[in-house]
């Protein structure tokens, strides 16, 4: 028995060493370390962000920048990673919180330990040195609606979709969209704020109902990432591509076919690659004890004139102008 248990132990040890060996090269160095932690690894959005972190690392050889994230979408798993990185003693954390509330305790401990904390998509995070947002939500909603109005020729019936009525950003987007539409007396909002729950199939069914109820509807403004796919499919199947306008938040890759067919007029988004770079640039500035000033240029596209205001906690809120509106003609630049 002993010999076998020894063999097993050796086996386990060998396996563990082979797993950990590549790590050895990563750890032992004296450069300042900026660790980016995302909500979940291995999905297109954060794969795109990792290209931004990699680009930052390439441009700043004096800094050790890398990205990690949990394998499952669970805030507890992300929390563990952040805990371990704090214990490891990284110099700065750039976190995209799965759930800002869950991370508060740990980020507070991190800041107390002298670690620089930068967050993204968490403008309500109190324990952070700086939170970076890609754009002002009101501006984004206005821009989406302006694009829609332009397509509709400033008149006709239109409606809005949100992920859920409780989703703060979505309500801000459609709210400022409605404000903008008041400029065009010909535009009539019907049945606003349909809830999609970010489910392309449910949105598809709902859009079909709306198309039946209002055969003369001219425009849709949507919010959650999958809404354009559902509404776009309904428009496409009704043979209304190019006749009904659809502008909403969406990602280039999944929307490609519908953009080509004309079912989707334009999609709006922000580029996670640039957001990842911006977070790391800010972390670097804070590590160098430099001040973040209103209107400064981070040297990242879309973050060349950021607004810096006081955040909900002791830190600042940095807002860029990183919104991207893409249509048939230019979405191919952003394939992710």
């Amino acid at each position, binding site marked *: 028995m002993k010999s076998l248990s020894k063999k097993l*132990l050796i086996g386990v040890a060998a396996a*563990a060493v082979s797993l950990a060996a590549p790590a050895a090269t990563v750890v032992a160095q004296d450069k300042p370390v900026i660790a980016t932690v995302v909500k979940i*690894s*291995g999905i297109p959005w954060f794969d795109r962000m990792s290209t931004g972190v990699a680009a930052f690392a390439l441009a700043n050889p004096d800094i050790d920048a890398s990205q*990690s994230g949990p394998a499952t979408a669970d805030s507890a798993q992300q929390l563990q990673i952040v805990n371990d990185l704090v*214990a*490891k003693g990284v110099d700065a954390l750039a976190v995209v919180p799965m759930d800002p509330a869950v991370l508060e305790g740990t980020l507070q401990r991190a800041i107390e330990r002298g670690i620089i904390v930068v967050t993204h998509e968490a403008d309500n995070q109190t324990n952070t040195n700086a939170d970076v947002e890609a754009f002002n939500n009101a501006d984004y909603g206005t821009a989406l609606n302006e694009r829609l109005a332009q397509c509709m020729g400033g008149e006709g019936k239109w409606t809005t979709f949100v992920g859920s009525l409780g989703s703060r950003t979505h309500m801000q987007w459609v709210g400022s969209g409605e404000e903008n539409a008041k400029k065009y007396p010909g535009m009539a909002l019907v049945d606003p704020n349909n809830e999609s729950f970010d489910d392309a199939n449910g949105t598809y069914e709902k859009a079909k109902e709306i198309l039946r109820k209002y055969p003369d509807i001219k425009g849709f403004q949507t919010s959650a990432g999958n809404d354009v796919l559902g509404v776009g499919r309904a428009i496409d199947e009704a043979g209304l591509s190019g006749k009904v306008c659809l502008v909403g938040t969406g990602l280039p890759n999944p929307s490609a076919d519908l953009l080509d067919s004309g079912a989707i007029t334009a999609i709006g988004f922000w580029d996670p690659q640039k957001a990842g770079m911006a977070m790391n640039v800010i972390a670097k500035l804070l590590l160098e004890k430099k001040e973040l000033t209103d209107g400064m240029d981070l040297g990242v596209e879309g973050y060349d004139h950021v607004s810096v205001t006081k955040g909900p906690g002791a830190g600042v809120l940095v807002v860029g102008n990183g919104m991207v509106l893409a249509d048939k003609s230019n979405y191919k630049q952003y394939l992710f």
Partner: protein
Amino acid sequence: MGKSAGQLVMLIVINGLLLVLGALISGGSFLSSYNLQSMASQVPEIGLLAIGVMLAMCAGQGGIDLSGIALANLSGVVSAVIMSTFVSASTDPSAFSIAFIAGAVLIGLLGGIINGALIAYLKITPILCTLGTQMAFMGLAVVVSGGKAVTVGSPALLSSIGNDMVLQVPIAFVIFAFAAALVAALLRFTPYGLWLMLMGTNPKAALYAGFPKNGVLVATYAISGLLSGVAGIIIAARNVNVKFDYGSSYLLIAILIAVMAGVKPEGGYGRVLSVVLSAIALQLMSSLLNFGGLSNFVRDFAWGLLLLTFLAVGRYRIAGFLPSIKRQTNPSAPSPQGPK
């Protein structure tokens, strides 16, 4: 006895190995007191849930508790919502803390008793019953909290549970160790422990021997629920906020820990010390990989590998090598022999 000792030695060796490996990779910082404390304060949440799963498994007849993390979240959420209406956390921090802790423990206990009663008296299969209550607990937590995170804040007493040390050991870990020791003593020294294990080994014989079967079942799930409540307190103390969907991955990890600790899924055998060591081993491994900056998918792979190794050890013993174990281990008597 041979088997349990072998499993225990194996767990101790693996823990030691992981510590050495961590020290080698990180150039010593893995063994820094800050990291050891950080890891020790991460273990309790999942460790408490794993002990609950172990108890349910020991009861036999397909015993398992899937509702652990949902009940932990429910305890935290409901207790926070109720107590903050009566006591203000900012003006009277210690009263709020005590009220919160009492509330969470009570709700955990209540949830556990509901599980036990459904299983014992309505004879619902444990896996289905606890799956049902898991969803019910989670749903209730959503309704009570409105789907949002509930802020518990950092009132003095709670914040020290989450952040402070006693003799360099995080208080959360002390609570975990104390709870584990209590359960171990319960299993070792009371009739309940004997009934539980014998019932798990042979329910029919237990019935004819006149064991208080329903009582044992209710007590088992009640203890598991109580441990969930304590886990809920630790989660709240460390994270400042509680939310209904926290730790959705814990469900399977808790079962993984129990199985890795050699708890028999068919009932009748389980050892608290092994569960504690197994939880620590998983924590060491995942922290090790985070230290090395490796993908978390590698961690899942490594956990799977570890589990398969342990299962292989168990299987190999069953295959008829027991006599040879006795011959070889008894004379050399492996040193650490815990309870049971």
